[in-house]
């Protein structure tokens, strides 16, 4: 046959082809992969634990790492720092040139657990005590900002993924059922969705958070926040899926499956929902930032992840003071990382959508749909 060796690409595969041409989106994918990888390896990459304090180094500026000595390139080293006060009684951190502390690699430091299971205490880099290596400065209690950023990334990034996974599952099921059955079921389910979407998101977030007992441990609060965010988020996804299913159920293969006696659940799960995937993926991409921002907002006002655990929003609550930003601008790093993460998801999501839109794709040849 003439067309046997032609590759029939699915809609998703066509979109992926197009996607590869957008350099900026690819860059964002790499960026996100880097962020998530660093979150996974946080224990190893961070020189200190998230709760390792050093009150003598409160708001210490980023360490000046020296690469040159006597005009020659040497192994990087830092000097110890000493806290003094200038004539206005402001804190000044001065380098103490009496002792050099070389930056060592694969050092033994604070213990942590790889992926939460295997204990280890090897860190990628560090310096000997009593000097502290603050690549990005220190916060009020002398905790290393870089370390807390890495550990905070674990929390903030994972909440985004897990929350969206839960919402997405619920949204798929509800939307699929509503779209497939139509009529009464559809009506009831959509009214339910609208009622949930009706209350302003942040208010609902706060109210649900108020319902969480004070006695919850941090881990339980973490789970509670994920549950709350998912509860708010599934309604929007369900509506989108339902719209698609309403049109998909008229397709011929659904009729064929029905006449074969395939059960409703199987039709929805195996035949209809997979066709919503390409659209759902970018809807998911565009909603992950919402979860990350939701958790950050909660932590920012003190209702989310509590001290000593780090989360990007948590770290920013310290930055809500203008005086502190003036004297220690490095406490704003979490905001920059949130921005980068959100922007990457937005760029990838929008580019995916543009790629999936057949009008914008400009490709005439396709398997007949």
């Amino acid at each position, binding site marked *: 046959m003439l067309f046997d060796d032609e590759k029939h690409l699915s809609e998703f595969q066509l979109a992926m082809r197009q996607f590869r041409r957008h350099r900026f989106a690819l860059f964002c994918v790499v960026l996100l992969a880097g962020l998530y990888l660093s979150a996974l390896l946080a224990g190893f990459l961070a020189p200190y634990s998230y709760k390792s304090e050093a009150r003598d180094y409160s708001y210490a500026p980023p360490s000046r790492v020296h690469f040159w000595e006597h005009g020659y390139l040497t192994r990087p080293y830092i000097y110890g720092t000493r806290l003094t006060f200038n004539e206005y009684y402001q804190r000044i951190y001065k380098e103490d040139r009496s002792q050099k502390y070389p930056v060592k690699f694969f050092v033994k430091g604070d213990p942590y657990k790889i992926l939460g299971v295997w204990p280890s205490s090897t860190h990628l880099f560090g310096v000997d005590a009593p000097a502290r290596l603050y690549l990005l400065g220190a916060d009020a209690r002398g905790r290393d900002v870089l370390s807390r950023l890495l550990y905070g990334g674990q929390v903030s990034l994972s909440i985004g993924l897990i929350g969206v996974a839960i919402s997405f599952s619920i949204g798929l099921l509800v939307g699929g059922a509503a779209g497939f059955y139509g009529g009464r079921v559809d009506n009831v389910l959509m009214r339910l969705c609208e009622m949930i979407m009706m209350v302003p998101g942040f*208010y609902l977030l706060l109210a649900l958070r108020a319902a969480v*007992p004070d006695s919850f441990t941090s881990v339980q609060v973490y789970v509670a926040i994920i549950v709350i965010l998912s509860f708010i988020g599934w309604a929007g996804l369900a509506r989108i899926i339902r719209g698609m299913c309403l049109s998909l159920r008229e397709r011929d293969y659904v009729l064929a499956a029905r006449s074969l006696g395939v059960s409703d659940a199987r039709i929805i799960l195996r035949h209809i929902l997979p066709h919503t995937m390409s659209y759902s993926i970018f809807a998911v991409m565009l909603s992950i930032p919402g979860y990350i921002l939701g958790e950050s907002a909660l932590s920012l*006002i*003190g209702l989310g992840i509590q001290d000593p655990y780090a989360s990007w929003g948590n770290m920013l609550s310290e930055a809500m003071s203008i005086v502190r930003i*003036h004297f220690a601008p490095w406490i704003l790093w979490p905001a920059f990382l949130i921005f980068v993460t959100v*922007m990457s998801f937005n760029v990838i999501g929008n580019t995916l959508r543009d790629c999936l839109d057949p009008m914008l794709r400009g490709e005439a040849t396709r398997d007949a749909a």
Partner: protein
Amino acid sequence: MGRYVLQRLLVAIPMLLGMILITFILMRITPGNYLDTMKMDPQFSAETIERYQKLYQLDKPLWRQYLQWIFNVCRGEWGYSFHYNIPVAKIIGGRLLNTLILSLASFFLTWCVAIPLGIWAALRRDQWPDKVIQFGSYIFLSLPSFFVAMVLLFWASQTGILPLGGMYGPNFDRLSLGQQVLEVARHLVIPATALSLGSMAALQRIMRGNMLEVLGQKYILTARAKGLPEGRVIYTHALRNAVNPLITLLGYEFSGLLSGAALIEIICSWPGLGSLMLTAVRSKDIYLVMASMMMGGILFLVGNLLADIALAKVDPRIRYEGR
């Protein structure tokens, strides 16, 4: 037209009841009875506690409590705030107005900037103004609004041009009406800007997309072929059709504004519904939490209703669809 409005109103009422049900359930799943706090406080006499017990029928089954709550809400009896020591109804009104002021200011700012920018970008497609605006919009879209607020507050503290939060200075009562308006406007700049930057970016992209789609239509070609001046083609013919889908966004934008406003209010110390909600949540002032949420939901409904009416006015097809 009137029939359409009536239809929408009728649909809105069960939605409102449903939302009140959700807030009621939320209140009930909160551990502890608010009356326990009352009982522990020596300020409240036994008679007052009795009275509140009767009022909220806390000894009766849940469904009766729900009906009683609805009845109370309609009567204007929205519960008592323990943090502020006054009935909830009294404190909600003022705060609600402040939130509305902030939301409306942000709303106008968004639309007045985003629409012209979107049109401009569409008209200069792929030239450098468009590219700059597109890149900028990606950035502003992703900047968390609380971060923008913090940066703006920092900038204001360095330069002293704008006030650092709150809604008015200490002098307020002694100013004339015009000066009072100006004072509030000055305090509005930072919160409204922080709030609207993100929506501006999003709306601008949508506007540009719609405009490009409309400009590709055949009737635009016809209009140009007829010899109409370019200004007329764009502003009379293209713009009207491009803006149409945006009107549906109006209602959702409003509710989204309320939500976003809450966090900005907290950061900029703007005395609105959002910061009230936060105080209520922090002090476990349950009736205040519920009332704020209900208010939020009601505003959402109103916003949607207004958006539907606006859409029906602009697009006559909607009016007759429902039949």
